[in-house]
């Protein structure tokens, strides 16, 4: 099996996820838009973005940002990490020429009533000192090497619990 495959024993409240930095180019923005089937011109047409929308350039679309956040979290958990819930708050746009920096911290680690292990994360996408998007993530982690959150179905999978 590849990947780190973190278990709940490996993770503690206050832990920091390793940061991830990425240089954003026009290709990043356009590829991300097309990968999410978002054909709107402000994600591929610089003239439209500047002259019609009155902004600096084309910018990263929201569904592709979700894919970036997923990649950031599962790079850390390994493939046994299973996303339960993501909550986004958009603060600003990400443009070609920006350097995106993803950072995250573990807010809580818990086991739910069904015996599923969960980590709650506060993840941030920033450019320089500006937070562009905040994402609260609830991700299931195995409790030991024999556990696999992906085996959970029906009532045994409760991704949207009000508490961690």
């Amino acid at each position, binding site marked *: 099996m590849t990947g780190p495959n973190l278990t709940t024993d490996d993770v503690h409240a206050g832990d920091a996820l390793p940061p991830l930095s990425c240089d954003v180019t026009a290709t990043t923005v356009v590829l991300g838009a097309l990968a999410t*089937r978002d054909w709107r011109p402000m994600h591929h047409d610089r003239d439209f973005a500047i002259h019609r929308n009155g902004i600096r350039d084309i910018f990263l679309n929201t569904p592709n940002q979700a*894919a970036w956040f*997923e990649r950031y979290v599962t790079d850390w958990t390994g493939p046994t990490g299973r996303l*339960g819930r993501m909550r986004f708050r958009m603060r600003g746009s990400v443009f070609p020429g920006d350097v995106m920096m993803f950072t995250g911290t573990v807010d809580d680690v818990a086991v739910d009533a069904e015996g599923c292990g969960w980590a709650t994360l506060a993840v941030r996408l920033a450019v320089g000192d500006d937070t562009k998007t905040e994402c609260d993530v609830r991700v299931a982690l195995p409790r030991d090497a024999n556990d696999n959150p*992906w085996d959970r179905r029906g009532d045994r999978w409760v991704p949207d619990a009000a508490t961690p």
Partner: protein
Amino acid sequence: MTVGDAAVFDAVRARIGDRQYEETAEFPVERGYVWTSCASVENANPLFWDDEVAEALTGGPITPPTMLSVWFRPHHWAPGRSEPHLPLQVHFDLKAAFGLPEAVMTDNTIVFHEPVRPGDVLTTCQVLRSVSDEKTTRIGTGRFWVIDVEYRNARGELAGVESYTGFGYSRAGKAPT
């Protein structure tokens, strides 16, 4: 609030919990898009690239959970098509019902249930969850609402729910039309 407003409010509230705008995806879920998506964010998760890992962990290939809404974005063009559905039509219905010309989305949550697999043909519907009383914020006066977009596979199993909080409003100083 005028009598007319109250009638509109009651009519809108009566639809809370209804499944509206049920639709079937235009195409089956396919792996080419999975790889394009993973490439766009350099996602090396072996669940999506290594069939042995996918078989061991998820009983075969699945798609990245955050691709949930990808399977419903319409083709840019299709033969004989007239106007496509607006995404989140309930949101636009509410703006129209309350005569609120502006709107912003303030919060967006995705909850992931049964994994989506290549070959799945998904269905979706929109469910109004709540509508607030009239509120005045920094940007104007209007109402908050929460709309869920549910995604199900062909077996009727819930694959995920996107939840949007919208604020429909008239700019400060302008009465609702």
